[in-house]
């Protein structure tokens, strides 16, 4: 029968998420809308608990006959993604309440999406990988169009769905080619088999599929539209949790599944990475909508994050985790800030609406400034150290052109981050925003604090953790 | 069957199979003529009429007269119709209705193709029946037929689900999808028939309701009253058959009745013990020649099928037509959960007692 100890050691967080999700479906079916408010908080608690479980079973294990395998590397990613997903869910209820769309399905879909992330992260088999990706994607499509009466949200969902289905098809086709040429779906067995032209084909297709899920360059077109159209709490989730998870999955696939073939994929990843940086940085220059701007910014940041992936497992793994962790925290804080942009008429999303925010909300402005500067990579904020780590990894792997591009792209992107800061600090004050939900304001401030140099300890501790996690990958 | 062909040589083997099929079809068609008459007679009796009584003694030849009349009429094809699909639809309906009969065992060993997945085959072919109706309704290029065919398709797809689950309960009890084995599992007398399942005592509480659900779903699946909304004459004239006349109409009718009789045969096979009599008489059977035994089996099979058909006919005469939303509600909100729960209970029972394997 089933080996429950192994299952718990390997996929305890996912088990918890599914259990809560199914239970919530059942309760929700009977209680209907009365369940909604509780469901948001319960779902967030379940996500926090799942993050804790991922840390508790840090060493991981193997279960279901090798369909899932975990190690500290993925458990770290799980903990971070579930944690930020939990925060994104916790702060979402006020927004939906005001829009009259407070429905209990939202947290359920979020739980299932998180389950998909966890399963993908744990995957050590092509089939598990695909199933996990599909669970995450299906939930995401629905979440993106959750405001079904708003044409923009519906459009975002539709675009995401059509392109996502294409990407899933690519991933699946690549996976089936890999299976066809190696005769196995197990990561280890595939890694052990010889690299041929057919396998290369499969690998490239799989890379394109995964690139879509992290919104890297040639597959990035959905990002700005979805970021702009989808409800803000959903974007807060999209920009943080799945990014973290899918990036680590990407790395995991490259490091373990195609670990022997570094020479074959290094260039491909480097090109994707460079293209993402360029498109992300230059695309954002002319944006006036802050959500759209953050969409382009995320494309650029995925480009940076792909540098350590291209650098390979030994050099890149710790800096990838460090960079992504700091990026998702900053991104979450930024979107919490966007959630506060509310006037009597509803939400506003134009950058100019932030004018003179320093007069009315000094603390929040300070926090947002720190977050933006950190994403831009200004020393001595956290983002700088993360980027420095990435650059060092790139240099160590001899990816000099890529590192140069990274630096140039960073300089270019400083322009638009600084523009937002300038609007907040020096422009004529606009009408004051309505008071924010306490949880939202708290998230902004905490995320801002995490970026501060006074919390250098945070970087130190985090760096220790990521190193430890990456060690787990090496073993 | 291919084993049989290999055993007897391609020529002889194929010929035997073809003759088997032909025999089966002819017998079925002749039987159908009288079944049609029975349907009308029952209907008439409930209404205290006499029913068809002019052609032949007691009107026995009525169906043949109708047949001749349909054949001799002109085939009218509407000008705007999609000719190929229009003519293909009734042919498809009838062909599929015949094809399904290939796996039905009417007596020990008397079956055209004794395949492993017989139940699934029947289920698959009956699920194809919807195409004839949709195609016919669409190709007529007219509103009433199209509305009728849409209703019919939705109805058939909905009720297929519960039929599927009911079949699963029987498969679980038997442990095989082969129809002959399903019949043989009920050979121990009337108490072992799956409709009663007294040999798995508490299961009668599940299996008898399943039998009823199957019967009602079969009514819906074959568009019989009280679920004949696709051809509800008060709303849709005659549904998908509005534009059909002559032989194509005949083929539709034929396919419909073949499907009804097939459902009766399926009920007999799955729930009423197939060709087995209500009390097993092994001594008597041993002393008889095989042919007599088989004929007796066939007689039992036919009798049970006729009983089921009688139920179909009497329901048609007695029950008023459902409203469409009630029909959908019944299918999705009552039959589906009930049959799903039954699958759960029966599989739990099978695992707990280990009756199978």
């Amino acid at each position, binding site marked *: 029968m*089933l080996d429950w100890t192994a299952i718990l050691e390997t996929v305890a967080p996912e088990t918890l998420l599914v259990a809560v*999700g*199914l239970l919530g*479906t059942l309760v929700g079916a009977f209680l209907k809308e009365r369940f909604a408010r509780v469901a948001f908080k319960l779902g967030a608690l379940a996500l926090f608990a799942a993050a804790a479980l991922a840390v508790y079973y840090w060493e991981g294990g193997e*279960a*279901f*006959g090798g*369909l899932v395998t975990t190690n500290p590397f993925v458990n770290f990613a799980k903990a971070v993604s579930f944690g930020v997903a939990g925060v994104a869910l916790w702060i979402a209820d006020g927004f939906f309440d005001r829009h009259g769309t407070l*429905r209990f*399905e939202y947290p*359920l*879909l979020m739980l*299932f999406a998180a*389950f998909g992330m966890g*399963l993908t992260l744990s995957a050590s088999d092509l*089939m*598990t990988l695909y*199933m*996990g990706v599909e*669970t995450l994607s*299906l*939930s995401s*499509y*629905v979440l993106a*169009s959750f405001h*079904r009466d708003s044409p923009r949200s519906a459009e975002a*969902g539709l675009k995401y769905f059509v392109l996502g289905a294409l990407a899933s098809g690519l991933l699946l086709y690549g996976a089936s*080619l890999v299976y*066809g*040429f*190696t005769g196995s779906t197990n990561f280890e067995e595939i890694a052990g088999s010889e690299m*041929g*032209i*057919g396998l290369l*084909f499969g690998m490239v297709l799989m890379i394109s599929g995964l690139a879509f899920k992290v919104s890297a360059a040639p597959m990035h077109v959905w990002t700005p539209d979805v970021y702009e159209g989808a409800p803000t709490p959903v974007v807060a989730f999209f920009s943080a949790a799945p990014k973290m998870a899918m990036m680590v999955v990407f790395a995991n696939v490259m490091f373990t599944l195609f670990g022997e073939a570094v020479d074959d994929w290094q260039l491909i990843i480097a090109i994707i990475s460079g293209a993402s940086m360029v498109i992300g940085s230059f695309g954002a220059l002319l944006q006036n909508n802050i959500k759209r701007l953050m969409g382009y910014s995320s494309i650029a940041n995925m480009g940076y994050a792909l540098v350590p992936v291209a650098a390979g497992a030994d050099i890149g793994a710790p800096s990838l985790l460090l960079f992504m962790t700091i990026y998702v925290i900053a991104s979450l804080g930024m979107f919490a800030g966007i959630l506060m942009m509310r006037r009597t008429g509803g939400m506003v999303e134009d950058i100019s609406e932030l004018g003179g925010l320093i007069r009315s909300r000094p603390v929040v402005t300070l926090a947002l400034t720190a977050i933006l500067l950190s994403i831009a990579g200004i020393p001595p904020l956290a983002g700088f150290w993360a980027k420095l780590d990435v650059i060092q990894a790139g240099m160590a792997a001899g990816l000099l052109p890529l590192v140069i591009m990274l630096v140039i792209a960073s300089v270019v992107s400083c322009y638009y981050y600084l523009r937002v800061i300038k609007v907040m600090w020096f422009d004529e004050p606009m009408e004051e925003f309505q008071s924010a939900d306490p949880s939202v304001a708290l998230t902004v401030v905490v995320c801002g604090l995490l970026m501060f140099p006074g919390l250098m300890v945070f970087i130190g501790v985090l760096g220790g953790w990521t190193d430890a996690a990456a060690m787990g990958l090496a073993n | 069957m*291919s084993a049989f062909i290999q055993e007897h040589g*391609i020529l002889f083997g194929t010929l035997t199979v073809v003759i088997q099929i032909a025999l089966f079809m002819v017998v079925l068609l002749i039987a159908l003529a009288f079944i049609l008459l029975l349907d009308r007679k029952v209907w008439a009796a409930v209404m205290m009429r006499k029913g068809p009584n002019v052609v032949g003694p007691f009107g026995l030849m009525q169906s043949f007269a109708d047949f001749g009349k349909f054949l001799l009429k002109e085939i009218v094809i509407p000008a705007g119709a*999609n000719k190929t*699909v229009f003519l293909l639809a009734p042919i498809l309906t009838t062909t599929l209705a015949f094809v399904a009969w290939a796996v039905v065992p009417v007596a020990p060993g008397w079956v055209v193709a004794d*395949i*492993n*997945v017989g139940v*699934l*085959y029947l*289920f*698959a*072919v009956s*699920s*194809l029946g*919807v*195409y004839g109706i*949709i195609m016919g309704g*669409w190709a007529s290029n007219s509103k009433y037929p*199209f509305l009728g065919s*849409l209703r019919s*398709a939705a109805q058939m*797809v909905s009720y*297929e689900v519960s039929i599927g689950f009911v079949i699963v309960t029987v498969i679980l009890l038997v442990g095989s*999808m082969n129809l002959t084995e399903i019949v043989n599992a009920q050979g121990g007398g009337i108490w072992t028939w799956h409709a009663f399942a007294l040999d798995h005592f508490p299961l009668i509480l599940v299996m008898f309701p399943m039998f009823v659900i199957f019967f009602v779903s079969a009514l819906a699946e074959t568009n019989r009253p009280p679920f004949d909304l696709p051809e509800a004459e008060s709303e849709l004239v005659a549904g998908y058959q509005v534009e059909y006349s002559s032989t194509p109409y005949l083929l539709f009718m034929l396919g419909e009745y073949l499907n009804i009789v097939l459902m009766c045969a399926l009920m007999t096979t799955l729930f009423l013990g197939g060709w087995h009599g209500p009390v097993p008489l092994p001594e008597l059977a041993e002393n008889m020649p095989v042919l007599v035994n088989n004929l007796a089996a066939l007689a039992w099979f036919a009798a049970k099928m006729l009983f089921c058909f009688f139920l179909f006919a009497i329901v048609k005469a007695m029950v008023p037509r459902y409203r469409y*939303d009630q029909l959908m509600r019944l299918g999705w909100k009552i039959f589906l959960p009930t049959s799903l729960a039954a699958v759960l209970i029966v599989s739990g029972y099978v695992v707990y007692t280990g009756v199978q394997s």
Partner: protein
Amino acid sequence: MEVIAFWILAVIVGAAAVFVIAARNPVHSVLWLILSFFTSAALLVLIGAEFLAMLLVVVYVGAVAVLFLFVVMMLDVDFVELKQGTLQYWPFAVLIGLAFFAEIVMVRTVGVGTRLEPSPGADSNAEAIGQVMYTDYLLLFQVAGIILLVAMIGAIVLTLRHRPYAKRQNIARQTARRRADATELVDVTPGKGI
């Protein structure tokens, strides 16, 4: 015998697939598609995978294609108009088609090949599938269920609307209604009205 059957069926599958994209009438396209599905099922029977074949018919032909047909019949889209201009992409289409074809050929020649045993380690196809599905791939089977659940929740979230003005039948209330709830006996004095 089986080889002949294979070639006949294979030609039908291929031809039907070509007609799916060549047919001018979208409904005809779907009908060709159904023929193609159905014949593929027959091919599966030929290699001994009868359970899969029946499932293909039940699921794809019996349910999915019916919905396809539904949608196509209701849409009334002029596909000829839609298709205009697609012809200029044919070089790409041919290229992609050739690439896929080459890959399939390579899988058969360079790759490890496929094992064509219909029911390894069991008497029947259904048993073999069941044994693998509920043991080795239990996790994936369950996850597939969850994916379907997510799809279901998604469909409900995106489409279910409670219309307050729609009249609904409440059978319980209907049957619980008594005469006293609905009618009242009034003594009307002549010339006064109620």
